[in-house]
């Protein structure tokens, strides 16, 4: 039997799990509040998903169009989320994002500038005005490096290449977390009064995705096992434009900034097909001729926006339809053309990493030829259910922020609203943890039995004589989700998916990793599979529960939004024997916010003085 006293123990007031934008911002706040703070991450510092974000960070600063303000950002976010967002979160996010951007600038971020020397802002899908603060198409790198360079001087202890396995509890409240060092495979116990999860999403469950190996939903699964709730997980964002060729990069993201900067989508007949897919609700604000769309691009404020910039769910479904009806490109996507829209030097300046990515990986020059693109699993709108102001979960002392938390985006996320989410709610999670710890009368204790069973669960994978190959189970899972729980869903397939997931659970229970525990990716893969399976099952069950089509969730057997769909959020929690699924009734929004969300633009811009 394992001797607990031999396991390394590290004590902090608060431990942050995840060092993307959300985790780093949370840790910085904790430290600023005087807490002894530790942060753990699976990879090296600075390599989290946030580094890959391209297009920008949404904040209504009004630098490019002075009509912009937080109310319009709030309205766009609610409309983009098909009104299923948590009202208060959407409000806080829109109000606080500009201050968080200014703070980043003080910490060293160098955003692209306007002619007047202010922070420049670009157009993006679903955002009424140019709103995305950016640096070319590498905004995530700027964000994470800024937080990293600032954070390392704030007395935060960074534990990198260290993977959290499961949370520890003292009664109801959280008491810490057990993790292992990737380098040695040794275990470590982090004792803490509060834990902040900032572990990102779980799109590694689909075969075509834009995510890295880290995105296995560890935080979601840890919170679930510890008694937390998952919310809105039926809403997975399939980004409309992933690379489709060559096979080895299938799914790799092509930023929406290509369309924001004028790129258009064409089918194999050369037709700009998005004009045929404008939803009624957006018709009044969308151009209906190419001529008008082009005028808008040139800055004509009387023109309406091009249909390529409709929300991502709409564009992804349109692409899927074009391909299915035989109007796709040679490798099963559609064409995205920027070559005929912008001069080569501007493409290279505004979209350098896209230029580079296609040149190096697909042997294609985007200043000369159109790209081939198709939908790719990209982002989790749903996640751990949290309090809108403090980010606390149902488990006392457990907080969540960033992509692993739910609420801000509702049924669909607008591009750029994630990076702003990270800094707004990362900070709030830090404040929440501080408030919680201040009220704590004694330090929670860790429990030897819990530690033992967590460690055993991980070492069993190495110690058993034989078992299935973790990589092959993962591939199997990805194909299952792609096939049965993809962009377009239907009861029958979802049911088949559930049966398949049961089979995969059995496989995973006897998974075997070869080799020792030292820097062993096969072992990590096997450990992460357990989390990914929980996430996959949660999506599947939530997708069955929501019998309508809304945002990122489309049911072929229940087309269109239904009024009833607006009255609840789907909540998943751990029951005594399996997953519990229930509908949580939504509360009425505060009157002021509701009228704002449904107001006309003119009213919010204050042009009519109302």
């Amino acid at each position, binding site marked *: 039997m394992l001797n607990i006293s031999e396991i390394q123990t590290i004590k902090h007031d608060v431990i942050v799990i995840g060092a993307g934008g959300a985790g780093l911002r949370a840790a910085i706040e904790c430290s600023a509040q005087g807490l002894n703070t530790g942060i753990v991450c699976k990879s090296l510092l600075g390599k989290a998903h946030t580094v*890959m974000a391209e297009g920008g960070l949404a904040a209504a600063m009004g630098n490019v169009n002075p009509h912009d303000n937080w109310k319009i950002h709030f309205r766009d976010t609610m409309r983009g989320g098909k009104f299923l967002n948590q009202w208060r979160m959407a409000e806080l996010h829109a109000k606080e994002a500009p201050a968080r951007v200014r703070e980043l600038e003080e910490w060293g971020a160098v955003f692209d500038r306007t002619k007047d020397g202010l922070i420049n802002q670009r157009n993006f899908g679903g955002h009424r005005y140019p709103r995305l603060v950016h640096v070319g198409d590498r905004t995530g790198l*700027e964000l994470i490096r800024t937080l990293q360079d600032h954070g390392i001087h704030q007395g935060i202890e960074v534990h990198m290449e260290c993977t959290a396995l499961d949370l520890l509890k003292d009664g109801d409240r959280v008491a810490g977390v057990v993790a292992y060092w990737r380098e040695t495979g040794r275990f470590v116990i982090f004792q803490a009064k509060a834990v902040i999860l900032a572990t990102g999403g779980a799109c590694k469950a689909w075969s075509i995705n834009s995510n*890295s190996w880290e995105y296995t939903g560890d935080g979601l699964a840890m919170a679930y096992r510890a008694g937390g709730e998952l919310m809105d997980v039926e809403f997975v964002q399939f980004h409309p434009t992933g690379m489709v060729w060559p096979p080895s990069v299938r799914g790799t993201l092509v930023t929406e900034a290509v369309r924001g900067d004028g790129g258009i989508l064409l089918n194999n007949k050369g037709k700009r097909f998005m004009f045929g897919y404008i939803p009624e609700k957006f018709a009044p604000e969308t151009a209906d001729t190419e001529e008008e769309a082009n005028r808008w691009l040139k800055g004509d404020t009387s023109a309406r926006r091009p249909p390529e910039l409709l929300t991502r769910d709409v564009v992804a479904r349109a692409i899927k339809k074009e391909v299915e009806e035989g109007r796709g490109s040679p490798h099963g996507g559609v064409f995205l053309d920027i070559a005929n829209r912008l001069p080569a030097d501007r493409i290279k300046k505004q979209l350098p990493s896209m230029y*580079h990515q296609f040149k190096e990986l697909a042997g294609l020059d985007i200043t000369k030829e159109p790209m081939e693109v198709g939908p790719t699993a990209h982002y989790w709108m749903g996640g751990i259910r949290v309090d809108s102001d403090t980010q606390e979960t149902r488990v006392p002392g457990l907080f969540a922020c960033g992509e692993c938390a739910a609420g801000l985006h509702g049924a669909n996320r607008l591009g750029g609203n994630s990076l702003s989410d990270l800094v707004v709610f990362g900070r709030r999670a830090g404040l929440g943890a501080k408030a919680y710890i201040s009220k704590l009368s004694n330090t929670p204790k860790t429990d030897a039995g819990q530690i033992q069973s967590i460690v055993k669960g991980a070492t069993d994978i190495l110690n058993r004589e034989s078992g299935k190959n973790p990589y092959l189970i993962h591939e199997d899972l990805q194909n299952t989700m792609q096939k049965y729980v993809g962009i377009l869903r239907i009861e029958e397939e979802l049911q088949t998916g559930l049966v398949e997931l049961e089979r995969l659970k059995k496989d995973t229970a006897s998974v075997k990793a070869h080799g020792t525990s030292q820097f062993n990716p096969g072992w990590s893969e096997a450990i992460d599979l357990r989390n990914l399976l929980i996430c996959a099952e949660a999506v599947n069950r939530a997708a069955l529960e929501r019998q309508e089509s809304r945002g990122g969730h489309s049911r072929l057997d229940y087309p269109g939004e239904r009024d009833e769909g607006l009255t609840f959020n789907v909540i998943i929690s751990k029951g005594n024997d399996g997953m519990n699924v229930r509908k949580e009734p939504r509360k009425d929004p505060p009157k002021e916010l509701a009228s704002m969300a449904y107001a006309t633009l003119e009213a919010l811009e204050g042009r009519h003085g109302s």
Partner: protein
Amino acid sequence: MAPKRKFRVWRGQGTEGRFEEYEVAVDPGMVVLDVLHRIQAERVNDLAVRWNCKAGKCGSCAMEINGKPKLSCMTRMDTFKGNEPITIQPMKTFDVIKDLVTDVRWNYEQNKRIPNLKPKPRDPDGHYRMAQKSIDRIQEFRKCIECFLCQDVCHVLRDQDKKDKFVGPRFMHRLANLEMHPLDTVDRIPAIRRDFGSGMCNITKCCSEVCPESIAITDNAIIPLKERVVSRYYDPVLWILRKIFGPKKTKSCGCSK
């Protein structure tokens, strides 16, 4: 069937190790990282390799391929002509942890030694104003994905092992970024000479050549820093004037203010 190709991959822990040979089917469009993943999934589940983005954005997958420091996710298989075996090994400048994974912690320690930006006050309306052209050159440095390939090739670190005397090209351009930042108020010049070792670099430009982000590290960061060091110690008056009136009053450095 996709054509097969031979690979010699370094396997081992710490100072112990050897090349193992693998024959792998190579599909169109594959990069070296795909080959390693294929070996991992089908043959050696525990082959240690770092990666994250698979698109040249995170800098995790640096290694030496046929002796050249490269990002394995951006090295396409069709760039190798003939059918000689392809040799894949870890970065030489850093100690091996296992297989292709090296201990790069030293780099993180260097960054921690560098004082961050301390900006001057905002304009009265709450904004900072900087002309795009005054930040173009620091944005070049900020493209860095911290792959540490430049650190790997720099002979001061690689052959002379002077990690205690020189922070290396990656952190020289981090220093240049801060020194050239139009809002910055910290003076790092004495430390650049004394603690960070600007004098150790003898401008061989190997670092610039391997940088996957094409950052002109030597020309645009290190040489200007060396010039600043020289002019400071040569002409302190010039320096004081620069700090009081801003760089524009002295030699043009492209700043807006």
